[in-house]
Protein backbone atom coordinates (compact mmCIF):
# COMPACT_ATOMS: atom_id res chain seq x y z
CA UNK A 1 0.00 0.00 0.00
CA UNK A 2 2.92 2.34 0.65
CA UNK A 3 3.82 1.91 -3.01
CA UNK A 4 0.44 3.26 -4.09
CA UNK A 5 0.76 6.09 -1.57
CA UNK A 6 4.24 6.98 -2.90
CA UNK A 7 3.04 6.98 -6.49
CA UNK A 8 -0.04 9.07 -5.75
CA UNK A 9 1.97 11.57 -3.69
CA UNK A 10 4.53 12.00 -6.46
CA UNK A 11 1.91 12.25 -9.19
CA UNK A 12 -0.08 14.75 -7.13
CA UNK A 13 3.07 16.84 -6.76
CA UNK A 14 3.46 17.06 -10.56
CA UNK A 15 -0.19 17.85 -11.16
CA UNK A 16 -0.19 20.49 -8.43
CA UNK A 17 2.95 22.10 -9.87
CA UNK A 18 1.32 22.24 -13.27
CA UNK A 19 -1.90 23.62 -11.84
CA UNK A 20 -0.01 26.45 -10.16
CA UNK A 21 2.71 27.26 -12.67
CA UNK A 22 0.83 26.29 -15.87
CA UNK A 23 4.11 25.58 -17.64
CA UNK A 24 3.33 22.68 -19.90
CA UNK A 25 -0.33 22.30 -20.78
CA UNK A 26 -0.99 25.71 -22.38
CA UNK A 27 2.07 25.35 -24.60
CA UNK A 28 0.99 21.82 -25.58
CA UNK A 29 -2.46 23.06 -26.56
CA UNK A 30 -1.12 25.96 -28.55
CA UNK A 31 1.42 23.69 -30.21
CA UNK A 32 -1.05 21.02 -31.27
CA UNK A 33 -3.47 23.53 -32.76
CA UNK A 34 -0.63 25.28 -34.61
CA UNK A 35 0.50 21.92 -35.96
CA UNK A 36 -3.01 21.26 -37.30
CA UNK A 37 -2.97 24.60 -39.10
CA UNK A 38 0.46 23.82 -40.55
CA UNK A 39 -0.86 20.44 -41.65
CA UNK A 40 -3.82 21.99 -43.35
CA UNK A 41 -1.51 24.04 -45.54
CA UNK A 42 1.01 21.26 -46.09
CA UNK A 43 -1.67 18.87 -47.39
CA UNK A 44 -2.36 19.69 -51.03
CA UNK A 45 -6.02 20.36 -51.72
CA UNK A 46 -7.83 17.22 -52.75
CA UNK A 47 -5.69 14.88 -50.68
CA UNK A 48 -7.66 12.18 -48.93
CA UNK A 49 -8.93 12.07 -45.35
CA UNK A 50 -6.69 9.07 -44.75
CA UNK A 51 -3.69 11.38 -45.02
CA UNK A 52 -5.21 13.68 -42.37
CA UNK A 53 -5.67 10.85 -39.87
CA UNK A 54 -2.04 9.90 -40.41
CA UNK A 55 -1.03 13.45 -39.63
CA UNK A 56 -3.00 13.33 -36.38
CA UNK A 57 -0.45 10.79 -35.19
CA UNK A 58 2.45 13.01 -36.08
CA UNK A 59 0.79 15.77 -34.07
CA UNK A 60 0.24 13.49 -31.07
CA UNK A 61 3.83 12.23 -31.06
CA UNK A 62 5.31 15.72 -31.28
CA UNK A 63 2.96 17.16 -28.68
CA UNK A 64 3.94 14.32 -26.38
CA UNK A 65 7.60 15.11 -27.03
CA UNK A 66 6.94 18.65 -25.90
CA UNK A 67 5.53 17.40 -22.59
CA UNK A 68 8.23 14.77 -22.16
CA UNK A 69 10.98 17.30 -22.72
CA UNK A 70 9.57 19.30 -19.81
CA UNK A 71 8.78 16.30 -17.61
CA UNK A 72 12.04 16.06 -15.70
CA UNK A 73 13.03 19.73 -15.89
CA UNK A 74 11.82 20.59 -12.34
CA UNK A 75 13.61 17.52 -10.99
CA UNK A 76 16.80 18.54 -12.74
CA UNK A 77 16.78 22.23 -11.86
CA UNK A 78 16.15 21.75 -8.17
CA UNK A 79 18.11 18.48 -7.88
CA UNK A 80 14.92 16.81 -6.72
CA UNK A 81 15.84 13.58 -8.50
CA UNK A 82 18.82 13.05 -6.17
CA UNK A 83 16.55 13.49 -3.18
CA UNK A 84 13.92 11.16 -4.64
CA UNK A 85 16.52 8.47 -5.23
CA UNK A 86 17.62 8.81 -1.61
CA UNK A 87 14.03 8.66 -0.34
CA UNK A 88 12.95 5.31 1.11
CA UNK A 89 10.59 4.45 -1.74
CA UNK A 90 10.83 2.06 -4.65
CA UNK A 91 12.53 3.84 -7.57
CA UNK A 92 10.00 2.56 -10.06
CA UNK A 93 7.41 4.66 -8.20
CA UNK A 94 9.18 7.77 -9.56
CA UNK A 95 8.71 6.48 -13.11
CA UNK A 96 5.11 5.41 -12.56
CA UNK A 97 4.11 8.73 -10.97
CA UNK A 98 5.77 10.75 -13.73
CA UNK A 99 4.12 8.58 -16.38
CA UNK A 100 0.71 9.12 -14.79
CA UNK A 101 1.25 12.88 -14.64
CA UNK A 102 2.43 12.99 -18.26
CA UNK A 103 -0.53 10.87 -19.29
CA UNK A 104 -2.84 13.35 -17.59
CA UNK A 105 -1.26 16.27 -19.49
CA UNK A 106 -1.36 14.44 -22.80
CA UNK A 107 -4.96 13.35 -22.27
CA UNK A 108 -5.95 16.90 -21.34
CA UNK A 109 -4.27 18.21 -24.49
CA UNK A 110 -6.08 15.61 -26.58
CA UNK A 111 -9.45 16.48 -25.06
CA UNK A 112 -9.02 19.77 -26.89
CA UNK A 113 -6.98 18.52 -29.84
CA UNK A 114 -9.32 15.76 -31.02
CA UNK A 115 -12.43 17.97 -31.33
CA UNK A 116 -10.28 20.56 -33.12
CA UNK A 117 -9.06 17.82 -35.44
CA UNK A 118 -12.65 16.75 -36.08
CA UNK A 119 -13.56 20.37 -36.80
CA UNK A 120 -10.65 20.98 -39.19
CA UNK A 121 -10.26 17.64 -40.95
CA UNK A 122 -12.54 14.65 -40.42
CA UNK A 123 -14.71 13.12 -37.67
CA UNK A 124 -12.99 11.04 -35.01
CA UNK A 125 -14.14 7.43 -34.99
CA UNK A 126 -14.46 5.10 -31.99
CA UNK A 127 -11.51 2.85 -32.89
CA UNK A 128 -9.39 5.94 -33.45
CA UNK A 129 -10.25 7.15 -29.96
CA UNK A 130 -9.37 3.75 -28.49
CA UNK A 131 -6.12 3.77 -30.47
CA UNK A 132 -5.23 7.21 -29.12
CA UNK A 133 -5.93 6.10 -25.55
CA UNK A 134 -3.84 2.93 -25.88
CA UNK A 135 -1.01 4.70 -27.68
CA UNK A 136 -0.95 7.39 -24.96
CA UNK A 137 -0.17 4.72 -22.37
CA UNK A 138 2.79 3.50 -24.42
CA UNK A 139 3.97 7.02 -25.25
CA UNK A 140 3.96 8.03 -21.59
CA UNK A 141 5.53 4.81 -20.30
CA UNK A 142 8.40 4.75 -22.79
CA UNK A 143 8.67 8.53 -23.10
CA UNK A 144 9.02 9.09 -19.36
CA UNK A 145 11.71 6.45 -19.26
CA UNK A 146 13.78 7.93 -22.07
CA UNK A 147 13.05 11.41 -20.67
CA UNK A 148 14.72 10.39 -17.42
CA UNK A 149 17.60 8.93 -19.44
CA UNK A 150 17.98 12.05 -21.56
CA UNK A 151 18.16 14.51 -18.64
CA UNK A 152 21.09 12.57 -17.21
CA UNK A 153 23.15 13.16 -20.38
CA UNK A 154 25.04 16.18 -21.63
CA UNK A 155 22.88 16.53 -24.75
CA UNK A 156 19.62 16.58 -22.70
CA UNK A 157 16.66 17.82 -24.82
CA UNK A 158 18.57 17.10 -28.01
CA UNK A 159 18.76 13.43 -27.22
CA UNK A 160 15.12 12.88 -26.23
CA UNK A 161 13.58 12.75 -29.73
CA UNK A 162 16.46 10.62 -31.00
CA UNK A 163 15.89 8.07 -28.26
CA UNK A 164 12.11 8.28 -28.35
CA UNK A 165 11.14 8.26 -32.03
CA UNK A 166 12.58 4.85 -33.01
CA UNK A 167 10.76 3.36 -30.01
CA UNK A 168 7.55 5.16 -31.00
CA UNK A 169 7.46 3.85 -34.58
CA UNK A 170 5.46 0.71 -33.63
CA UNK A 171 2.99 2.93 -31.75
CA UNK A 172 2.47 5.08 -34.83
CA UNK A 173 1.93 2.00 -36.99
CA UNK A 174 -0.60 0.60 -34.53
CA UNK A 175 -2.33 3.94 -34.09
CA UNK A 176 -2.63 4.71 -37.79
CA UNK A 177 -3.86 1.15 -38.35
CA UNK A 178 -6.53 1.57 -35.68
CA UNK A 179 -7.59 4.88 -37.23
CA UNK A 180 -7.90 3.87 -40.86
CA UNK A 181 -8.07 0.07 -41.17
CA UNK A 182 -11.29 -1.83 -41.65
CA UNK A 183 -10.27 -4.32 -38.93
CA UNK A 184 -9.01 -2.06 -36.11
CA UNK A 185 -9.15 -4.82 -33.47
CA UNK A 186 -5.87 -6.30 -34.66
CA UNK A 187 -4.10 -2.97 -34.31
CA UNK A 188 -5.66 -2.21 -30.94
CA UNK A 189 -4.49 -5.60 -29.73
CA UNK A 190 -1.00 -4.81 -30.95
CA UNK A 191 -1.02 -1.47 -29.13
CA UNK A 192 -2.11 -3.23 -25.94
CA UNK A 193 0.73 -5.72 -26.30
CA UNK A 194 3.23 -2.92 -26.84
CA UNK A 195 1.97 -1.08 -23.74
CA UNK A 196 2.23 -4.19 -21.61
CA UNK A 197 5.70 -5.21 -22.79
CA UNK A 198 7.31 -1.80 -22.58
CA UNK A 199 5.59 -0.76 -19.37
CA UNK A 200 6.93 -3.90 -17.70
CA UNK A 201 10.40 -3.30 -19.10
CA UNK A 202 10.45 0.35 -18.02
CA UNK A 203 9.07 -0.49 -14.61
CA UNK A 204 11.78 -3.10 -14.05
CA UNK A 205 14.67 -1.11 -15.52
CA UNK A 206 14.01 2.42 -14.26
CA UNK A 207 16.13 1.93 -11.17
CA UNK A 208 19.26 1.46 -13.29
CA UNK A 209 18.80 4.79 -15.03
CA UNK A 210 18.56 6.96 -11.93
CA UNK A 211 20.91 5.12 -9.58
CA UNK A 212 24.67 5.25 -10.09
Amino acid sequence: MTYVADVSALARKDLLLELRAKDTLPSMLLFVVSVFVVFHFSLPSGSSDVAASGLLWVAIIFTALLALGRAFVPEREQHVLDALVLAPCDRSAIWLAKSIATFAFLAAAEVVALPVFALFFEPVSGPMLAGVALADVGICAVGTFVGATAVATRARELLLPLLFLPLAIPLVIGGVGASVATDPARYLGFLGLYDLLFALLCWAAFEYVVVE
Partner: protein
Amino acid sequence: MSGHNGKVGRAHRIPLPTLAVATFVLVTLALALVFFVAPNDADQGFRQRIFYFHVSIAFTSYLCFGAGAWKALRHLWKRDPHADLESYVAVHQGVIFGALVLLTGTIWAKTSWGHWWVWSEDQLVLFLVLFLFYAAYFMLRYSVDPGPQRANMSAVYALFGVVLVPVSFMAIRLSQRLIHPQVFTRHGANFGGWILVTYLVAQAAVLVLAYTLYRVELTGKLIDARLRELRLA
Protein backbone atom coordinates in the same frame (compact mmCIF):
# COMPACT_ATOMS: atom_id res chain seq x y z
CA MET B 1 36.92 0.87 -16.51
CA SER B 2 38.83 -1.10 -13.93
CA GLY B 3 40.11 -3.95 -16.09
CA HIS B 4 42.88 -6.03 -14.58
CA ASN B 5 45.58 -7.76 -16.44
CA GLY B 6 44.50 -11.28 -15.64
CA LYS B 7 40.98 -10.56 -16.87
CA VAL B 8 42.13 -9.30 -20.25
CA GLY B 9 42.86 -12.79 -21.47
CA ARG B 10 39.64 -14.27 -20.15
CA ALA B 11 37.56 -14.39 -23.29
CA HIS B 12 40.47 -15.35 -25.49
CA ARG B 13 39.88 -19.03 -25.85
CA ILE B 14 40.69 -19.15 -29.56
CA PRO B 15 43.81 -17.13 -30.44
CA LEU B 16 43.23 -14.21 -32.81
CA PRO B 17 45.61 -15.40 -35.59
CA THR B 18 43.70 -18.70 -35.80
CA LEU B 19 40.45 -16.77 -36.07
CA ALA B 20 41.91 -14.52 -38.77
CA VAL B 21 43.06 -17.51 -40.84
CA ALA B 22 39.68 -19.24 -40.38
CA THR B 23 37.92 -16.06 -41.52
CA PHE B 24 40.13 -15.76 -44.59
CA VAL B 25 39.60 -19.41 -45.60
CA LEU B 26 35.84 -19.33 -45.01
CA VAL B 27 35.27 -16.02 -46.77
CA THR B 28 37.33 -17.15 -49.78
CA LEU B 29 35.44 -20.45 -49.90
CA ALA B 30 32.11 -18.65 -49.59
CA LEU B 31 33.00 -16.24 -52.42
CA ALA B 32 34.06 -19.14 -54.63
CA LEU B 33 30.85 -21.04 -53.92
CA VAL B 34 28.64 -18.00 -54.39
CA PHE B 35 30.13 -16.95 -57.72
CA PHE B 36 31.17 -20.24 -59.32
CA VAL B 37 29.23 -23.13 -57.83
CA ALA B 38 25.75 -22.00 -56.81
CA PRO B 39 23.27 -22.22 -59.69
CA ASN B 40 21.58 -19.16 -61.15
CA ASP B 41 18.12 -18.44 -59.76
CA ALA B 42 15.31 -19.32 -62.16
CA ASP B 43 13.56 -15.95 -61.80
CA GLN B 44 16.25 -13.50 -60.87
CA GLY B 45 19.32 -15.00 -62.54
CA PHE B 46 22.79 -13.94 -61.49
CA ARG B 47 21.79 -11.01 -59.31
CA GLN B 48 19.99 -13.32 -56.87
CA ARG B 49 23.45 -14.31 -55.58
CA ILE B 50 23.50 -11.23 -53.36
CA PHE B 51 20.99 -13.16 -51.27
CA TYR B 52 23.83 -15.26 -49.81
CA PHE B 53 25.49 -12.16 -48.41
CA HIS B 54 22.37 -10.18 -47.57
CA VAL B 55 20.68 -12.88 -45.52
CA SER B 56 23.80 -14.09 -43.73
CA ILE B 57 24.77 -10.52 -42.85
CA ALA B 58 21.25 -9.85 -41.56
CA PHE B 59 21.32 -12.97 -39.39
CA THR B 60 24.77 -12.04 -38.07
CA SER B 61 23.57 -8.55 -37.25
CA TYR B 62 20.64 -9.92 -35.22
CA LEU B 63 23.04 -12.20 -33.42
CA CYS B 64 25.32 -9.27 -32.57
CA PHE B 65 22.39 -7.29 -31.15
CA GLY B 66 21.34 -10.39 -29.21
CA ALA B 67 24.86 -10.82 -27.86
CA GLY B 68 24.95 -7.13 -26.93
CA ALA B 69 21.70 -7.53 -24.98
CA TRP B 70 22.93 -10.72 -23.32
CA LYS B 71 26.10 -8.96 -22.15
CA ALA B 72 23.97 -6.02 -21.01
CA LEU B 73 21.90 -8.40 -18.93
CA ARG B 74 25.10 -9.91 -17.50
CA HIS B 75 26.19 -6.40 -16.56
CA LEU B 76 22.96 -5.53 -14.78
CA TRP B 77 22.50 -8.91 -13.21
CA LYS B 78 25.94 -10.26 -12.30
CA ARG B 79 27.92 -6.99 -12.40
CA ASP B 80 30.43 -8.69 -14.65
CA PRO B 81 33.20 -6.04 -14.93
CA HIS B 82 33.82 -6.56 -18.65
CA ALA B 83 30.21 -7.01 -19.70
CA ASP B 84 29.61 -3.30 -20.41
CA LEU B 85 32.50 -3.06 -22.87
CA GLU B 86 31.60 -6.41 -24.45
CA SER B 87 28.00 -5.31 -24.83
CA TYR B 88 29.09 -2.07 -26.49
CA VAL B 89 31.45 -3.84 -28.90
CA ALA B 90 28.77 -6.39 -29.83
CA VAL B 91 26.24 -3.61 -30.53
CA HIS B 92 28.89 -1.74 -32.53
CA GLN B 93 29.49 -4.77 -34.73
CA GLY B 94 25.73 -5.22 -35.02
CA VAL B 95 25.35 -1.66 -36.32
CA ILE B 96 28.18 -2.13 -38.83
CA PHE B 97 26.58 -5.30 -40.16
CA GLY B 98 23.17 -3.63 -39.98
CA ALA B 99 24.46 -0.85 -42.24
CA LEU B 100 25.68 -3.57 -44.62
CA VAL B 101 22.20 -5.13 -44.58
CA LEU B 102 20.73 -1.78 -45.64
CA LEU B 103 23.38 -1.44 -48.34
CA THR B 104 23.01 -4.94 -49.80
CA GLY B 105 19.24 -4.69 -49.41
CA THR B 106 19.01 -1.49 -51.42
CA ILE B 107 21.29 -2.91 -54.13
CA TRP B 108 19.13 -6.02 -54.34
CA ALA B 109 15.96 -3.94 -54.40
CA LYS B 110 17.35 -1.83 -57.25
CA THR B 111 18.38 -4.81 -59.37
CA SER B 112 15.23 -6.83 -58.67
CA TRP B 113 12.47 -4.28 -58.53
CA GLY B 114 14.06 -1.21 -60.05
CA HIS B 115 13.81 0.94 -56.92
CA TRP B 116 16.55 1.73 -54.43
CA TRP B 117 14.14 1.61 -51.56
CA VAL B 118 11.14 -0.71 -51.17
CA TRP B 119 8.90 -0.08 -48.17
CA SER B 120 7.22 -3.43 -48.66
CA GLU B 121 10.40 -5.31 -47.82
CA ASP B 122 9.93 -6.14 -44.10
CA GLN B 123 13.55 -6.88 -43.31
CA LEU B 124 14.79 -3.69 -44.88
CA VAL B 125 12.36 -1.47 -43.01
CA LEU B 126 13.05 -3.29 -39.76
CA PHE B 127 16.76 -2.72 -40.22
CA LEU B 128 16.15 0.95 -40.85
CA VAL B 129 14.26 1.22 -37.55
CA LEU B 130 16.96 -0.76 -35.76
CA PHE B 131 19.67 1.31 -37.36
CA LEU B 132 18.03 4.51 -36.08
CA PHE B 133 17.55 2.97 -32.66
CA TYR B 134 21.13 1.79 -32.28
CA ALA B 135 22.53 5.00 -33.74
CA ALA B 136 20.73 6.72 -30.85
CA TYR B 137 22.43 4.18 -28.55
CA PHE B 138 25.78 5.61 -29.60
CA MET B 139 24.53 9.16 -29.16
CA LEU B 140 23.43 8.24 -25.64
CA ARG B 141 26.64 6.46 -24.78
CA TYR B 142 28.85 9.32 -25.92
CA SER B 143 26.70 11.90 -24.18
CA VAL B 144 27.36 10.47 -20.71
CA ASP B 145 30.70 10.43 -18.92
CA PRO B 146 32.29 6.99 -18.57
CA GLY B 147 31.32 5.36 -15.33
CA PRO B 148 28.77 3.07 -13.73
CA GLN B 149 25.81 5.21 -14.77
CA ARG B 150 26.81 5.13 -18.42
CA ALA B 151 27.23 1.38 -18.23
CA ASN B 152 23.77 1.00 -16.68
CA MET B 153 22.06 3.28 -19.21
CA SER B 154 23.73 1.61 -22.16
CA ALA B 155 22.81 -1.81 -20.80
CA VAL B 156 19.16 -0.88 -20.31
CA TYR B 157 19.01 0.63 -23.78
CA ALA B 158 20.58 -2.46 -25.34
CA LEU B 159 17.90 -4.55 -23.61
CA PHE B 160 15.20 -2.26 -25.04
CA GLY B 161 16.64 -3.16 -28.44
CA VAL B 162 15.89 -6.87 -28.18
CA VAL B 163 12.30 -6.10 -27.19
CA LEU B 164 12.01 -3.59 -30.02
CA VAL B 165 13.08 -6.14 -32.67
CA PRO B 166 10.07 -8.49 -32.41
CA VAL B 167 7.65 -5.64 -31.63
CA SER B 168 8.79 -3.64 -34.67
CA PHE B 169 8.71 -6.73 -36.82
CA MET B 170 5.11 -7.37 -35.82
CA ALA B 171 4.24 -3.73 -36.40
CA ILE B 172 5.86 -3.66 -39.83
CA ARG B 173 4.10 -6.88 -40.80
CA LEU B 174 0.83 -5.28 -39.68
CA SER B 175 1.54 -2.12 -41.64
CA GLN B 176 2.12 -4.13 -44.83
CA ARG B 177 -1.51 -5.20 -44.83
CA LEU B 178 -2.39 -1.58 -44.56
CA ILE B 179 -0.11 0.03 -47.09
CA HIS B 180 1.10 -2.71 -49.41
CA PRO B 181 -1.21 -5.68 -49.81
CA GLN B 182 1.26 -7.81 -51.77
CA VAL B 183 4.43 -9.15 -50.22
CA PHE B 184 7.35 -10.19 -52.36
CA THR B 185 8.40 -13.76 -51.82
CA ARG B 186 12.11 -13.91 -51.48
CA HIS B 187 13.17 -17.35 -52.61
CA GLY B 188 11.46 -20.05 -54.61
CA ALA B 189 10.53 -23.48 -53.38
CA ASN B 190 13.79 -25.10 -54.43
CA PHE B 191 16.01 -24.27 -51.50
CA GLY B 192 18.33 -27.26 -51.40
CA GLY B 193 21.49 -28.80 -52.83
CA TRP B 194 24.23 -26.33 -53.68
CA ILE B 195 22.06 -23.38 -52.74
CA LEU B 196 21.80 -24.65 -49.19
CA VAL B 197 25.50 -25.56 -48.98
CA THR B 198 26.52 -22.16 -50.34
CA TYR B 199 24.20 -20.37 -47.96
CA LEU B 200 25.52 -22.29 -44.97
CA VAL B 201 29.16 -21.63 -45.88
CA ALA B 202 28.44 -17.93 -46.50
CA GLN B 203 26.61 -17.78 -43.17
CA ALA B 204 29.51 -19.41 -41.35
CA ALA B 205 31.99 -17.10 -43.09
CA VAL B 206 30.11 -13.94 -42.07
CA LEU B 207 29.64 -15.21 -38.52
CA VAL B 208 33.33 -15.99 -38.09
CA LEU B 209 34.20 -12.64 -39.68
CA ALA B 210 31.93 -10.85 -37.21
CA TYR B 211 33.37 -12.74 -34.26
CA THR B 212 36.93 -11.95 -35.37
CA LEU B 213 36.10 -8.26 -35.73
CA TYR B 214 34.42 -8.33 -32.34
CA ARG B 215 37.50 -9.86 -30.75
CA VAL B 216 39.88 -7.45 -32.49
CA GLU B 217 37.86 -4.43 -31.35
CA LEU B 218 37.45 -5.78 -27.83
CA THR B 219 41.17 -6.53 -27.49
CA GLY B 220 42.02 -3.06 -28.76
CA LYS B 221 39.60 -1.43 -26.31
CA LEU B 222 40.92 -3.48 -23.39
CA ILE B 223 44.53 -2.66 -24.22
CA ASP B 224 43.52 0.98 -24.51
CA ALA B 225 41.89 0.93 -21.08
CA ARG B 226 44.88 -0.86 -19.56
CA LEU B 227 47.27 1.66 -21.10
CA ARG B 228 45.26 4.54 -19.67
CA GLU B 229 45.36 2.89 -16.25
CA LEU B 230 49.14 2.47 -16.44
CA ARG B 231 49.58 6.09 -17.46
CA LEU B 232 47.52 7.25 -14.51
CA ALA B 233 49.37 4.96 -12.11
